[in-house]
Each structure stands twice: as C-alpha cells, then as structure tokens.
C-alpha cells in the first residue's frame, strides 16, 4: 500500500492493545505512555472527539517527538498505518501554527536556500573538490542516470564520504551519470514531515524538471529519505507519472556487482559486520535484500544480524527530524541502537544512509562503544581494485 492513502477515521481502529509500545523507540527510552504510538493516536482521537479542544505546543510536541520510523505500523495487529496518521497530524499541528520553532526555521531555510543547512546552494559540489579527479557527472547535460546526492552528503563535511565513495564507484563501473549541482534542491522530505507538504511542492516540481531535462531514465539516491520521497510521494504530489525510475544506491550497486561491472581486489580482509536497516529504506521503502546482496558479494565479509533487523529494525534516532527538535532524545535512541550493534560482536556497523551513519557514529563516540560505523558505499569502494591496477 502506498502510504498516501489512509482512511480519515483510521484512529478508530486502534484497539489500544499496547503492542506498539514494545517496539516504539521513544516509549522504550522513557517508559512514559505519552511517548508511545498508542498515546499519540489517543491524543488525535481526543482532539477529534472534543476531549482535547485546544491543542497547544505541548500537544504538538508529542507528534514532533516521534521518529516516524514506522515500527508501530509494522507491528500493529489492527492494520493502522500509525506513522502516516502521525505524519498527517503533524501537518494539522503546522496548520494550527504549532510547528516547533527549530522546524519552522528548517523549512524556511529550505524555501530560501533550497537546502537544509541554509548555505548558498552553489556549495552543493564542494564535496567533489578534493577528489583526485573531478567527477565526470559534473555539468553533464544529458545522461542515463542522475545521482541525486541529497543535502546531508552534499553539505555536511562529515558525510561527504558517502557522495565521494558513490561517485567513485560509478566512475569505476563506467556509469553514464549526471550530477545536478546547484540545480539540485532539497527533495522536500524534511519540509513535508514537518507538516509542510504544500511548501515542498515547488521543490518537487523543480527537481523532477531538472531530471527530465537530462533525459535520464533513472534517478539514484544514496539517501533513503530522498529515495522514499521521490519514489512514493513525488508522483502523488505532482499527480502524474515521473517518466523515470527511482532506485536507491544499494539496489543500483547490487546490480553492478552481480553483473561483474565492479572488479574486486583479490586480497580482501576478513571482517565481521552487522547491518542497520534505515527506516525509510527498509520498513518504509521495502528495500531489505539489496544491501545484503552487496555484503554477500564482497569476499571476506561476514554479516551477523542484530535481533531487531529488517522490518523489525530499530531506528537510529535520526528519523522524523527528531534531531532538530529534541537532540538529546535522538542521541539516547542512537546509543541504544549502537549498543545492540556492538552486542552482535561485529566490529563494523554498516548502514545505507548518511543520517544513520552520522547519528550512530556520534553515539558510538560519546558512549565510547568500540564499533566502527560505515556507509555501505564505503564498504564497496574499499573492496574495489584501485584505479591504476
């Protein structure tokens, strides 16, 4: 089911069984009912039925404290698409003027600067500047594939590595690709989940036109949120077919590896890794196999799963813009996930999301947990024969 169709009275189908409490990262952290999906749905119902007549900032906060990770939707025995319901409630809160200030500011930055960090949008290719050679995708007017880098990998220096590694792999694989540079605008996902889907329509239209102008048949993203939003929300928001496919980099890389287009080094070291499923890619986007196919294709890599994996994965703490709204809670949830990862005995946590990578890395550092955190594109690049061979 696409998350876009939802019954208006779906909250009535919550039978208050409480099963969602067992998987909700915010409830598990505070053990306070108000931080549970069941309570968030109960508050929505209370607003509809008049028990809670005037929602306040504190009402809104209950929805913005949610990671929108969808663990509740997955486990809900009554089939309530809880995360979607809560996302729509965020929109209602925004319409009532109750969007929290840090998130209002975030949306304003995106409208004004076309990116989440608020710096000039022409900085979008700074990550490419210290590569040995400039990526061939820069300035390409026609290409088969567009690599949509996403704000975090393009503008947060800590995450440059994701874009750098992925582009390097594309070069090795001889892929005909284009980068949009400053013509790439924030995909609109952060605005939409803050409750500003209407604010995002211009950026959605712009991005789709930019891809169409290059005649591309495929958009690839390394960011699972961009992927999810492009793939599932763009066509609905525009009310038309996009005219090209949208895939995540893991799907693209798995195909390249299996087609033998990426020659691997013969002397790869043994390493035990665990894989963290990003919520937008896995549970919400339905991509579980591709990253595991990649890890299976690299000799020497042994994958050990965490207990909470695939559809049952536990959010890294970076979902739902929680990091902008309540950084402390976000960090605590990340720490829980890193401890789970370290508990598998793996020395490396692999993810396929720059946001997961960042939150997990920071948690590992502050909690002094001895695991390395890597994006899967880095794992692939490390396994390739070097260019001059």
């Amino acid at each position, binding site marked *: 089911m696409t998350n876009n169709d939802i019954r208006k009275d779906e909250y009535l189908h919550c039978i208050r069984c409480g*099963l969602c409490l067992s998987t909700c990262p915010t409830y598990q952290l505070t053990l306070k009912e108000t931080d549970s999906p069941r309570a968030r749905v109960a508050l929505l119902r209370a607003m509809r039925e008049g028990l809670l007549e005037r929602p306040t900032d*504190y009402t809104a906060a209950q929805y913005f404290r949610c990671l929108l990770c969808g663990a509740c939707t997955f486990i809900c025995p009554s089939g309530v698409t809880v995360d979607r319901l809560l996302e729509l409630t965020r929109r209602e809160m925004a319409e009532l003027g109750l969007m929290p200030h840090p998130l209002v500011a975030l949306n304003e930055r995106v409208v004004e600067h076309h990116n989440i960090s608020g710096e000039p949008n022409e900085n979008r290719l700074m990550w490419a500047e210290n590569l040995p050679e400039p990526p061939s995708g820069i300035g390409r007017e026609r290409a088969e594939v567009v690599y949509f880098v996403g704000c975090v990998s393009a503008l947060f220096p800590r995450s440059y590595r994701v874009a750098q590694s992925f582009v390097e792999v594309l070069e090795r694989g001889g892929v005909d690709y284009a980068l949009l540079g400053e013509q790439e605008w924030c995909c609109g996902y952060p605005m939409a989940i803050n409750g500003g889907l209407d604010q995002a329509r211009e950026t959605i239209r712009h991005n789709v036109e930019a891809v169409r102008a290059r005649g591309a048949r495929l958009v690839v993203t390394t960011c699972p949120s961009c992927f999810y939003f492009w793939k599932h929300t763009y066509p609905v928001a525009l009310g038309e077919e996009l005219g090209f496919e949208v895939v995540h980099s893991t799907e693209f890389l798995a195909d390249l590896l299996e087609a033998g287009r990426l020659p691997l080094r013969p002397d790869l070291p043994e390493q035990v890794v665990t894989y963290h499923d990003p919520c937008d890619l896995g549970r919400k986007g339905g991509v579980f196999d591709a990253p595991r196919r990649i890890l299976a294709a690299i000799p020497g890599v042994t994958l050990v799963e965490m207990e909470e994996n695939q559809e049952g994965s536990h959010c890294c703490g970076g979902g739902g813009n929680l990091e902008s709204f309540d950084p402390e809670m976000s960090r605590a949830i990340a720490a829980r996930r890193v401890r789970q990862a370290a508990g598998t005995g793996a020395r490396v946590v692999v993810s396929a999301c720059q946001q997961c990578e960042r939150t997990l890395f920071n948690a590992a550092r502050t909690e002094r947990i001895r695991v390395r955190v890597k994006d899967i594109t880095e794992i692939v690049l490390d396994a390739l024969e070097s260019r001059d061979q």
Partner: protein
Amino acid sequence: MEELIVKLKEILGPDKVLTSLEDRIAYSYDGTFAQNLPDVAVLPESTDEVAVVVQIAAEHRVPVVPRGMASGLAGASIPFSGGIALSLTRMNRILELDEGNRTVRVEAGIVTADLQAYVEERGLFYPPDPSSNRQSTIGGNIACNAGGPRCLKYGVTGDYVLGLTVVLADGRVLETGGKAIKNVVGYDLTSLFVGSEGTLGVITEALLKLIAKPQFVRTARAEFPSLDDASRTVNAILSAGIVPATLELMDETAIECIEEAMHLGLPLDVEAMLIIETDGSDEEAVVREIEAVARICRENGARAVEVAQSEEERAELWRARRSVSPSLARRAPNKLGEDITVPLSAIPEAVRRIKEISARYGLPIVIFGHAGDGNLHPNILFDKRDPEQWARVESMVGEIFDVALELEGTLSGEHGVGTLKRPYMEEALGPVSLDVQRRIKQALDPLNILNPGKVLP
C-alpha cells in the same frame, strides 16, 4: 488536589509527576474501550517512592490506581475519575536471579516477555504466557492472575509467585512469602494479593519460581468440519492421559478474521481448528504424545492434522492463534472479549449456546480460547458509536455469563473483573463470598483509596 500535586513534585521530582491534559489522556485508558482521566499520573522508580505516593494519597483521601502497560481487558487499570494513575513501568529491574534455587526477584514493571527472554537465555523457564506478554508487566500479570495457552499444563501466574513486596494502603511495605517452597506459617498473604487487581495493595516486587526449560516441543494443527467434534476432541485428548502444553480452539469466524488480516492460507471451509502442543525433556515421549494427539483428532472427526516439522513451521502455526484477538478489529470498530470458563465436558454445549445468542441478537461472536482448561474467549464484534448496538451487546454479555454460570463455570478465567464484570459479581459469587471479600477490602484499605470502584460491586 493542587496541594497533593505540589507535594508529589517536591518529593519525586517534576519529571515523575505528570499533570498536563495530554499526559492525563495518555494515562486514561487500557486495552478496553473504557476511559477516565486521572488528575495526575506518577512514575515512581522504587518501592519507597510508591510508598510515599500512597501515603500522600491516604493523607488527601485521593484514589490511587496502579497500572503496568495498561493492556488489560477488564478495565482494572482505568483511573477512577480523577485521582492518581500510578504507573510502575519504570520499575523494571531484575533484582536477583538465583539459578541454584531457580527463583528470580523482579520489580513489578518488568515486561513479561523481557523476563522470559532473560531466564530462557540461562536455560530456565517462566511458563505463564498471556498473549500480551510483550505489552504487559509481571505486576499486572500478578494483579490479574493472568493465564495463557501454556497454563493448561504449567499453571497460571499465581502458581509461580513465591513472594511479594506490597505497598499497603497506609504506605507501609509488606513482604510476603520467600524462597522456601513449602510455607504454612500464617495466612497465605501472597495468594491474597494475586488477582487482587490493585484493590488491596500495590505490588512493587515479586519473587517468582522458575523451572527448567523444556528441551523439546511438537506442535500440531487439526482442522474440524464440525465445531462440536472439535470441542469433544479436547476432552478426548485429556481423557487419554495426555497433558498437552497447550490446547487452543478457534472457531470459523476467528479463522476467517485471521485469514483476512494475515493471509496465512488457513482453511475457510471448516468450523474449527485446534492447535495442540506437547513438550518435555524426553524427545521420544514428546513425539509419541503428539502422534497420539493427531490420532485422537482424526478419530474424533478432524479432516486434516498437520504436525510442524521445524521451528519455522511451528512459528507459522502459532502466528494464526496469536493474531486472533487483534485481527478482529478489522471486522468491526469494537470488540468485547469475554473470558468465561466452563467444565471441560460442557465446552460443546457452551459453544452451541453462545452461537445461538449471536444469531438471536444479530451480532457476530467469535469464539477462541484455551479450550484445554475450559477457558473460552467469546468476542462480540460491534460498533460502539451505535447506541442501539451497544444496548444489544450489554444484553448479550449478560446472557453469555448466564451460560457460564448455568454450566457450572464462571465469569473470568484470566482477564479479571475490573469494571466490566463487576455488575455480575453478586450472581457469580453469592452473598457470603462477597461479604467476606468486602471485609478483607475494608481491613486492608479502610479509606477505600486503592483502585476504588473495581472488582467488588
């Protein structure tokens, strides 16, 4: 009330005392459709803190309603209108595992499934398995004396409680029981608090008995074209001297609902299914028993019997049973799940009469449950927004209880009384029993501040 809240905040700290309307709504409900706002929700983290809360409540004559994860199905943890909702979820520590004596001491707020996982990693076993084991706490299980499928062979929650720490209505802390298995010194106060639904004291810690984990399990599912045959088979298995770990019944409406929700490939042309499990530490015996069970099923009219050959197949067979209750929500906005028990020989008659009630009132009743111990869960499906339907439901509930009592059974096997079954207590227990219970309540809670308005009419 304001003075009380100020005092609570002073002593517990503001983080543990919630007074906003949003927080009060979050602490207003349980697993039923009932709802009442408390004045304040408190989240103590120790027995001492619970004692302080109860003392302050006693001073101010304010009701205290203890609560675990609020997944109960009888309304027992719904707040009194106003008063204090006392949440024990943050008291979730394991205090002592004694592997030599196979006991564990825990705080009341530990999630039952978490405790089970913890002891099973160490080769031990805590058998009581309410279907809500991921969203209910040991304290709540004890307060409602929760059952579950495995209770047929292993007994209910109360059978595993060796001792309790209880905060009494005046704030004193009572310790009952201990690690000694046999103990007849004085009245059995542990048993008094088991199933007391928070009306006699607040359970804050429990000493639980564990057993060695059974090494082998076999699971079978049998399909019966006739519901009567399925009901009869339950007793036939037990009469043959086999005590399965579980013996679960689902009727055709339950099967349809699960299939609609889960698409497991269940047969839609049978009237009932039984799920039967044998377990133990001798693999041959376990296999022999499940084979005997399969034979008895066939002899009593089963069309097909499937025995799980692997852990995955076993999980698959169980998925159906575990999804029953929630799957019903897709049929109708509300369900009222009853919990009657009848003597084993009366199961076919009980099922027949309940189906007849359903037909007469024109609302679906789904029947499933732990047929092996005579505990049936007839669930009425309805829409509470329609007052006419709700009126019908209320009459139907009365008639279902009449069926149970006429067949020498009772109102509740494992959910408890709460508010929902309270009106029927007099009929179920008679005046003498009620009088004794009222005196116990008065002795332990003279101010009637502990979960007032529950259990006793």
